[in-house]
């Protein structure tokens, strides 16, 4: 049983990783890499928020992009309409999170009564409608062409922006980790496992699902805000199904319900994409690099059926059981005690 110890082995490992990430831009002086890793971290935040839905509450949403998009647009619009200062940036993040929170609350109430596939399709429809609104509301969004804006002066230095994103990611991770291992988080897991049974234990499951959806929505909006600033540009692509699928794929590849998995997923997908398309430039066989990219997904399912982190965790605990009991069947103990 894992006890909540601050200095557990895995926490120490995480701490070392964070330190390495902090040191990274000072060691590797490459802006491209900094941007790539920033991108990875931002999508990592998005994917973690998705994991709250998929991994912890068992909800497959095809509309997560709507919250990401709201964050992105909020920040972009406010930074371009007002001054591009840190203050406006912070306010825009808060406003984005608020709007996303309210919207996810309403959408949650409206949709969370539905069963799995139906829920997924309904969220897709709602986020599709939002996309249409963004396309049509050109005075504000500039539609599909989008618009560029200035990021706050300090973020001109990509390293500073990187560190800000990293700090936010760490905060989000800690908050979400606490969230999922709180009593509330346990109820979410119960909902995932057997919603009807959770009800008859006296939990109002709809509340819990809405809470999960709001938390996920708010964090996704944060990711969206950061994303917009990292590009200094926004267009309607932030609201498309592709963003949702990215979040979904990262979560699954990394391992659902692990929180660290989605981060790993983000690393895998973003860097595979980056390096495979890079290979295409140097080796003609990789011209169709997307084929290899697709094969990665397929192999991931075959070799990591529970996602990378999930599968490693399972293997590790199996190995621990083996080592501890040396092939003693679970039955053997029962005889004595049941007498």
């Amino acid at each position: 049983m894992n006890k909540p110890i601050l200095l557990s082995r895995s926490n120490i490992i995480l701490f070392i990783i964070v330190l390495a990430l902090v040191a990274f831009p000072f060691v590797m002086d490459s802006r491209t890499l900094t941007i790539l890793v920033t991108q990875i971290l931002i999508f990592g935040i998005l994917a973690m928020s998705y994991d709250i839905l998929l991994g912890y509450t068992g909800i497959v949403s095809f509309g997560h992009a709507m919250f990401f998009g709201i964050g992105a647009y909020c920040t972009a619009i406010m930074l371009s309409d007002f001054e591009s200062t840190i203050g406006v940036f912070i306010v825009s993040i808060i406003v984005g999170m608020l709007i996303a929170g309210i919207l996810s609350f309403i959408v949650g109430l409206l949709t969370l009564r539905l069963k799995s596939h139906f829920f997924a399709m309904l969220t897709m429809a709602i986020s599709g409608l939002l996309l249409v609104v963004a396309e049509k509301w050109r005075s504000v969004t500039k539609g599909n062409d989008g618009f560029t804006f200035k990021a706050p002066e300090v973020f001109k230095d990509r390293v500073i922006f990187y560190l800000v994103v990293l700090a936010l990611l760490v905060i989000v991770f800690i908050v979400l980790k606490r969230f999922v291992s709180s009593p509330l988080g346990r109820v979410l897991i119960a909902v995932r496992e057997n919603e009807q049974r959770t009800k008859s234990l006296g939990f109002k499951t709809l509340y819990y699902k809405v809470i999960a959806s709001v938390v996920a929505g708010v964090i996704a909006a944060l990711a969206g805000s950061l994303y917009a600033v990292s590009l200094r540009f926004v267009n309607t692509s932030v609201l498309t199904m592709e963003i949702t699928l990215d979040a979904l794929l990262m979560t699954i590849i990394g391992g659902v319900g692990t929180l660290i998995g989605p981060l790993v997923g983000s690393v895998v997908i973003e860097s595979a994409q980056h390096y495979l398309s890079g290979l295409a430039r140097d080796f003609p066989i990789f011209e169709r690099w997307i084929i290899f990219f697709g094969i990665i997904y397929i192999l991931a399912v075959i070799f990591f059926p529970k996602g990378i982190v999930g599968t490693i965790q399972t293997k590790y605990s199996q190995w621990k059981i083996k080592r501890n009991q040396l092939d003693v069947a679970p039955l053997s103990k029962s005889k004595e005690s049941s007498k």
Partner: protein
Amino acid sequence: MTSLLKLDNVNTHIGQYHILQGVHFEAKEGEVSVLLGRNGAGKTTTLKTIIGLTPASGGSVTFLNQDITKKATYDIANLGIGYVPEDQGIFGDLTVEENIKVAMRKETDESKEKLEYVLNLFPDLKKFWKKAGGNLSGGQKQMLAMSRAFVNDSRLLLIDEPSKGLAPIVIEKVMEAIVEMKKQTTIVLVEQNFIMASKIGDSFTLIDDGKTVRNGAMKELIEDDELKHKYLGIG
């Protein structure tokens, strides 16, 4: 009498767990063999191993002088083995009619006759013919699960705790049905209701901790109070 089914030192793993660790028994043609043992002893797993759902990792299962240890479940079933699982295995979204239709291998006169027979035995099923299986009461589900196995012409029936959840009066009917089936079919029965087991069983196999601890004729067990007490907590 010849033995129809023979389990020889059967071992079964589920995942990393070693569940069956040496199960032996024989089911003789035309007899009812009862598997007994406490909860978690491995009775259900034994049946599942016979039908191939949790294939044996060691030892052998022989049916009609064929080694069926490594065969696929549907192949084993098609050799003429019927199965009534302990969780009834009802297809919840399918109606009673559809549940039976899926199960019926061939629609012959004989199978229709048998259907007629079980429907008379369990009139509730007839009453709820078009109702979704998932909406039946617990006992009705049990009846449906039995009927699904009865309508086919099986050489061997594996029945896992048929009396569970049934009203006493229905248990009598089920016993009656089993006795009726016995005329044509060999039966392996897992049963906790010792009254029922002792009444219709011809032989018994006691399983404990995944191993066969005793085989014998039912009469022996009924008379052996010590054995009953040790493994079944009765007497």
